[in-house]
Structures are given as C-alpha cells and as structure tokens.
C-alpha cells in the first residue's frame, strides 16, 4: 500500500517534470478517469485500514473504474448529453465521500 502511494507521488513528480503531451482526443476523458482513479485509491486505503486490501482488487477496480468513467463521458458526448460527465462526477464524489467517512471512522475511532 505504501508502495502504491509512493508510486502515485513519483508518477505525479514525473508528470510535472516531463510534462508529457496528452493527445487532444483523449484530453476530455482524462479528468473523468482521474476522478475514478481517486475513488479507487481511497477505496484501497479504506480496504487497507479494514484489513481486506488486495492488490488484485485494487488493480481491477482502478482500471475498470477509469475506463468505464471515460467510456460514459464518451457515450454522453456522442449522444449530446453533456450532463453525463456531471453524473459521473457526482457518483464518484459520493463514493469518495463514503470512503473518506469510513477512513475517518477508522482513524478517529468513530
């Protein structure tokens, strides 16, 4: 788990230093994928605290979450429903909150 957090930080640093060019076609979907990834990460943190963390679950949830979120936004764009992205953000934000709450309860002993 600590390795994952470390990898995330290192990745961010690499991104800041190298500043890789994101393909323009991909640009609109990346933010959604990031939100999904945030959810997966917090989920992993929560699982870790609850002692049920599994790297397999983490990898699968992160990959599917990100891919599905991006796909939803893509579909919404094709259908002309811009609100799709809002819906995706709302859903993931809710989950992020729930995970945060769980983590907080664990740590603060709530």
């Amino acid at each position: 788990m600590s390795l994952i957090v470390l990898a995330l930080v290192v990745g961010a640093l690499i991104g800041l230093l190298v500043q890789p060019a994101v393909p323009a076609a991909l640009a609109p979907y990346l933010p959604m994928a990031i939100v999904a990834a945030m959810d997966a990460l917090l989920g992993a943190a929560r699982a870790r605290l609850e002692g049920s963390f599994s790297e397999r679950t983490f990898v699968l949830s992160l990959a599917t979450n990100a891919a599905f979120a991006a796909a939803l936004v893509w579909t919404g764009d094709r259908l002309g429903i811009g609100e799709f992205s809002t819906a995706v953000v709302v859903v993931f934000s809710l989950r992020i909150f729930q995970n945060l709450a769980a983590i907080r309860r664990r740590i603060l002993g709530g």
Partner: protein
Amino acid sequence: MARSSRGWRVAAVALALLAGVSVASTGIRVARAQAAARSRRPALLELLKQRTAEGDQLRGKLRDLRRELEALARQEIGASGLSGEVATLRLAAGLTAVEGPGVEVVMADSPLASRVGRSDPRYRIQDLDVQRLINELWALGAEAVAVNGERTGALTPVRMAGNVLLVGVRPVGSPYKVQAVGDPERLYSGLLASEVGKDLRSWSSLYGIRFEVRKARSMSLPAPSEPSSRSREGLEPGGGRRSPGAVGGGWGGG
C-alpha cells in the same frame, strides 16, 4: 499484502504511477488553458470598453455638430417650416428623448441558466423573445420603445451576436428592461393576453426566467445613439437619382 501475488503488486504500482502522471499532466493542461484564456479575455474586454467609450465620445461630438448646424439654420430661417419639420420627424424617427406613460417589462435569464450550461436557450432570454415582445408592443400602439435604456427602431434592431444581445451596436445584458411609451392600460392587458406574453409567463414557471410587466405613469426614454448619415437615393416619381455617397456605407453595423 502477503496475500497478493507479485504480478498484481507490480500492476498496482504501475497503475498508480500512471495515475500520478495523468493527474500531473491534466493539471498542467488545465492550468495552461486557463492561463491562456485569462490572458486574452481581459485584453479583448479592455479593448471593447475602450472602443465603446470612443464611440460614445464620437456620438456626442456628432450630436454637438448637428446642434451647431441646426442652430445656424434656425437663425437663418427662424421658426419656419424646415427645422420644425426636422424636429417632428426626429421625434417620430425615435431620434429625440421622449417621456410619457406606458409599461415597463423586466425579463431576465433563469438563475438556473449558469448551471444547465449556456447552450440551453430555454433558460435564457433570446433575441427572438425580445423581438417578439417589441413587435407586440408596436402592435398595441406603443410610440417609443427602449431596451435597457437604448432606444430601438428603424436604425437600432435587436439581435444576438453569439451570446450577447445587441440593441443597434450596443451590447446589453440580462436583466432586460423594456420600456414602452403608449396607453398603459392597453399595453398592459394586451401584452399579458398576447401569445408572447403567455409564452414568457409559462417559460417563467417552467424554466425560471423572469418576466414582469408593470404600468408606469411617466417614463423617460433617452435619445438613441445618433446614427451616422445613411446614403441612398431618393426616388423622384418616375425616376431615380443616384446619390454621390457610396450606398451601403449603410448604418447599423452589419
């Protein structure tokens, strides 16, 4: 962690790395785009403000020049026909400030407009709404109409340039105050009973746009921005003459 196999761990670390890179690069992209937008917009706005102020100054100067010439003409011909007729026609053409009773209509974009995105016209007042309203006011015998203090008439149509409502070449914004001088009773009841009045009222309950009509005992409508002279030819019965000026140096800002 002992439960997971080595392969999954490597995958997890790689994915986390990728996520980190994505976050950073997206952050950079958004920040750059914002910076670019920030740097151009104020410059444009500043320029536009400058030009509008310049235009006001020019219009004022033009008005002074016309007054000067009018005064000279009056000296020569006294109260005789010419300048009197000019004055009447200027009033009729909506070129002088007027006052009188009438109605005042206030329309505004729905407070939901900013949330549903500006592409959705149902939550915003459109040029067509204002045009229909003005059309109805004329039909009900209005004698002078102004939108946000800008007189509208033969020289100053109401249109939309992109997302901005223009009266003549003057941009005006929501809330829109439409003032009409005329018979207050007729304008008031006629407007509420009209098709456009009903539409606006139902949209106000459906989408939250604002639509209010009230009678006014006395209103002052300003003179419109003075047009520059229009050049065309007068048609003498049975034939035409061509004015020397280029036709379609036309006023109105295309």
